[in-house]
């Protein structure tokens, strides 16, 4: 028994010992990668191809999927609701990204120079980043209620400004949702901008001061150009965030998701409703392909544009 064990153990050990060091390391490398490769293949790549395939079918959970060519895409592009949603999604992006970046840069620029209570003030700006969008959506929703419930209308009426409908208005609802979305992301952007500001070597500033440049000139000629990698990262990161907005919209308009009259509905909410409220899985898959394409174009475009400008 003991000797049989010993023989069966020496077999693989001898084989392993005969391998040279670099072969052993290659075997180790693939052993380390085995589970991750299965994961990425099965849970990232295969589903991606499946999403493209499903977008060409009429799958609805009940009957097996049937190939219908580009009918889903034709239906989508002919649907006025889709174009409304498309427009909303870009409004979130076009307003949200620049507004949040300008605000967070200005705050980071000044906060970086503040020494008194620096950590405390930074914490105030950072805290909203740690909140749950689903929970804060309800807090903001309460803020926007008419008097006597809502805090904002209560404040407005106390200073003599008329009541605003906010989430109940076709014109104001999208902006009312955008504010908490910007609010929640500011802390992250401020921290990243401050890290970027600190990475600029102080010799640049010293040289500029010797040359007699003022604060404004230093900001324009040194800080902003040298901060470009940070800015590019934040523009791409926050654009992707606004294009994928969902949690806030879902929770702030849950009695009529995306309402009133689809005026706040972003693409991801449309995908959610098509797939999991009306179970048109094939049609929803086609919408996800559109989202994928938009995200891809926006990321590539921004990287390209920001790289071209010096």
């Amino acid at each position, binding site marked *: 028994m003991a000797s049989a064990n010993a023989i069966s153990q020496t077999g693989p050990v001898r084989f392993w010992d005969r391998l040279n060091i670099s072969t052993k*390391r290659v075997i*180790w*490398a693939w052993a*380390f*990668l085995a*589970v*991750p490769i299965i*994961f*990425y293949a099965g*849970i*990232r*790549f295969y*589903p*991606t191809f*499946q*999403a493209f395939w499903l977008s060409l079918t009429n799958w609805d959970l009940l009957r097996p999927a049937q190939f219908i060519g580009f009918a889903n895409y034709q239906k989508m592009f002919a649907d006025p609701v889709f174009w409304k949603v498309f427009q909303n999604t870009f409004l979130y992006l076009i307003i949200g990204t620049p507004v949040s970046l300008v605000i967070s840069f200005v705050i980071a620029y000044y*906060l970086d*120079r*503040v020494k*008194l209570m620096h*950590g405390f*003030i930074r*914490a105030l700006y*950072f*805290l*909203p980043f*740690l*909140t*749950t969008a*689903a*929970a*804060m*959506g*309800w*807090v903001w929703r*309460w*803020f926007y*209620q008419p008097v006597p419930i809502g*805090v904002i209308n209560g404040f407005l009426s106390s200073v003599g400004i008329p009541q605003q409908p906010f989430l109940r208005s076709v014109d104001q609802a999208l902006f009312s949702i955008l504010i908490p979305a910007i*609010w929640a992301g*500011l802390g*992250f952007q401020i*921290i*990243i901008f401050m890290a*970027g500001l*600190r990475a600029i070597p102080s010799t640049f500033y010293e040289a500029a001061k010797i040359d007699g440049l003022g604060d404004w000139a230093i900001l324009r000629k040194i800080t902003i150009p040298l901060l470009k990698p940070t800015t590019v990262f934040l523009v791409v990161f926050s654009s992707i965030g606004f294009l*994928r907005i*969902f*949690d806030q919209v*879902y929770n702030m308009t*849950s009695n009529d998701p995306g309402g009133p009259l689809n005026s706040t509905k972003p693409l*991801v909410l449309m*995908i*959610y409703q098509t*797939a999991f409220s009306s179970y048109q899985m094939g049609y929803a*898959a086609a919408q*996800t*392909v559109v989202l994928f394409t938009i995200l*891809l174009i926006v*990321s590539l475009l921004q990287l390209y544009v920001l790289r071209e400008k010096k």
Partner: protein
Amino acid sequence: MTVTSTELKANSRDIRPGRIIAWTLLLIGGLIMITPLLFMFSTSLKTSGQVYDLRLIPAAPTFDNYIKVLGDGRFMQWFLNSTIIAVTVTISNVFFDSLVGYTLAKFEFRGRYFIFLAILSTLMIPTEMLVIPWYLMSSQLGWLNSYWGIMFPGMMTAFGTFLMKQFFEGVPNDFLEAARVDGLNEFTIWWKIAMPMVVPAISALAIFTFLGNWTAFFWPLIVTTSKELYTLPVGISSFSAEASIQWELIMTGAAIGTIPTLLVFLLLQRYIVRGVMLAGLKG
């Protein structure tokens, strides 16, 4: 940031009105930032009769809402679900993303660059595109309404792998070679020698993964239909919709979802801020 003594002198002499105004505005802005949180906590301490009183400090603060909301056990269950899920996914990411990042940084083998590009390219695929196939997969394999069903899509991430690879590249090979000469196997070298050298990156990855999974809403909303398996964000959303106009209860639910991350932040503020900076700059 190096500050020379002359600069310090210049700064202390430099208390101009502009600086004071900037400081005051920053402080006011910061207080506005936390106003929603303050009102949330304040309202969670009010009775239903006091909700219309918009003063920030409740006239007669009471924990009745917390007793009521926590009392029916659902929030406890959601809290437990969220904790188990976020902790498990974080451990998995720290383990696998580090292992893959290390392998791609420190091993030479044919196909290394291809594997790296393949993993990196998954950053371009939005979750929303994958949820329909994931849902199909989950329903076929019986993963709907299970912890595993909520967790499986996030067990590894390209972001974490990339972050860890960047940091492992900075680990000097001499240390690893010395361990190899001592006869340690490759797994032990990674776990015992390399991992302790990238602790700041590990904590950054852990913070991001935990926070991301703690606040995750979209996929848990899709994959769970039974209330016992809701995560805290999905639970809060469903609870709030049910509570309708009982705002003091809605604010209490939101506060219960917010308190844990705020507490962790207050305890670990320095590490978290540094972690976010690290992840943002290298990632």
